[in-house]
């Protein structure tokens, strides 16, 4: 078992506390106003990675499944979206849908194989299969190898709204981000999410209760892949390129670190973690300090000293934050 957070029941989770609602609305308000002070491109990058980490957390935090291959969905969707925008020249909303569709398909294939094994084997299988996908991307002509896909325009959303302007794009990305997080929150607190957590806690017992455990795992895997794909598609749209970096295993490692650092198994954790890791990378990129080494060291410190992650530790240390 990897980290146990709070337990709750369906009835519990359906009821959202008024204070929580106010907090969420306030945060959305901040999100709307933030580009007035902060560079929107940085904010969008943060949202893409926060969404990626949240998608990953859906699988690890609630399903208890550690995937070492999420870069395949993130990078794969980025490639497909970039290709759709550049070669097929379709509207961005369709390009994103195509990207997410590709991630879902890939998630289904990899998931079908991976859920046949558990624990560490699951991690190794996902890593190996995503590396296979990496080699595919390296050789397939449409990805343009080391160059990647670049030099396309973002196009017009629904054929009307031009996304070339970064403020316009910001509100589009923010809308997708909030909607996705809401969807993840709903999934986690749905009966499906409850059973998923039951499987995480005690697989044997879930089986004996008559649940088809493999199907729940696969369902979580595919959904997680889909959201990771959405994050990748948005990133491709934002930076107007898709490269091998996005499908590399380092990317799978980064998303694990984001989730671990922020806190596994909470909605806020991965967002905080992604924010920290992306900010750290931005700072290190200009300092000449080796990024990989720092990330590796952060990993080690996280695993040894605070496995609950930042949000998890805060919740644990501050009793007022604990759910009543």
């Amino acid at each position, binding site marked *: 078992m990897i980290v146990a957070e709070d337990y709750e029941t369906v009835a519990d989770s359906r009821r959202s506390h008024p204070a929580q609602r106010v907090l969420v609305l306030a945060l959305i308000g901040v999100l709307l106003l933030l580009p007035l002070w902060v560079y929107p491109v940085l904010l969008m990058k943060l949202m893409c990675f926060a969404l990626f980490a949240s998608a990953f957390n859906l699988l690890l935090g609630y399903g208890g499944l550690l995937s070492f291959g999420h870069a395949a969905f993130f990078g794969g969707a980025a490639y497909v979206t970039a290709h759709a925008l550049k070669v097929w020249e379709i509207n961005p909303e369709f390009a994103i849908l195509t990207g997410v569709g590709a991630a879902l398909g890939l998630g289904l294939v990899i998931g079908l194989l991976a859920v046949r094994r558990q624990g560490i084997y699951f991690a190794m299988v996902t890593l190996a299969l995503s590396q296979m996908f990496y080699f595919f991307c390296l050789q397939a002509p449409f990805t343009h190898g080391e160059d990647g896909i670049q030099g396309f325009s973002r196009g017009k959303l629904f054929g009307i709204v031009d996304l070339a302007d970064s403020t316009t794009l910001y509100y589009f990305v923010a809308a997708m981000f909030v909607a996705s997080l809401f969807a993840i929150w709903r999934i986690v607190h749905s009966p499906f999410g409850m059973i998923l957590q039951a499987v995480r806690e005690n697989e044997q017992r879930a089986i004996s209760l008559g649940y088809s455990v493999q199907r729940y795992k696969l369902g979580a895997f595919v959904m997680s892949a889909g959201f990771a794909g959405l994050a990748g598609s948005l990133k491709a749209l934002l930076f107007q390129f898709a490269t091998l970096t996005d499908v590399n295993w380092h990317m799978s490692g980064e998303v694990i670190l984001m989730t671990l650092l922020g806190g596994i198994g909470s909605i806020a954790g991965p967002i905080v973690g992604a924010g920290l890791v992306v900010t750290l990378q931005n700072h290190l990129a200009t300092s000449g300090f080796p990024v990989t*080494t720092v990330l590796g060291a952060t990993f080690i410190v996280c695993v040894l000293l605070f496995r609950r992650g930042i949000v998890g530790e805060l919740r644990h240390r501050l009793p007022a934050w604990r759910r009543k």
Partner: protein
Amino acid sequence: MTMILGMPLPVLTGQLLIGLINGSFYALLSLGLAVIFGLLRVVNFAHGAFYMLGAFTAWMLGQYLGIGFWGALLLAPLIVGLVGAVVERTMLRRLYDLDHLYGLLFTFGLALLLEGLFQHVYGASGKPFSAPEAMKGVVRTDFVTVPIYRGWVVIASLVLCLGTWALIEKTKIGAYLRAATEDATLVQAFGVNVPLLLTLTYAFGCALAGIAGVLAAPVFQVSPTMGSNLIIIIFAVVVVGGMGSILGAIATGYLLGIVEGLTKVFYPEAANIAIFIIMAVVLMLRPAGLFGKEY
């Protein structure tokens, strides 16, 4: 010229030899992983990094101290093993009581740390490392051309693999190790120093990766990323073979190396992914792996 399946024989045997050499490294590394996992229940993601560390230590010994190949072959694994022992004593030890995934995550961080450090200091490009003078020639026969060094690598790794197997299956310390794998608490109750055994096992596994690194240094170049590319393939090998058996790990390593070599002859585009495809097929047909028992 003799032809087999439409291929000239020397081409076929040449690729077979390359496959055998790759297979030697797969076998040595998956063996180390299996030994460590058997006792510690840790999937050592840093195994590739220790392999790289072995190669780099050999290169540094030559560069800064003028120690040749044979000296490095002896010293580098000792140094790598020592590093492994320190890692186990100071950090890895704390994770034994937790979910096995934390061991994987910790060693993943360690791998990133080591790889990043060497890349920062020595750059991403490969460093040449030459084979000992006595082994520079080639042996030619009608149907195969074998560079002496490469032939030696195959034999050395075979000896190391079988030696490790004998050490674990036939000696007293091996018996302790197997017993501790079954029930560590009981073995400790009999007065065996199990924590020390754990440290030694981890150090031994890392040293095996270190030897593989030194052996690999003249064949491939010495570069910071040489290990991380390999470890993913090793994971696939381990998934195919299962980590339950020492001989299984060795056999699967050689087998997949050879299959990969043959793929290069018949369908070169798929050579990179041949092992992963085999893994996928094995997962469909025999989810527990060829020699596996599920933990």
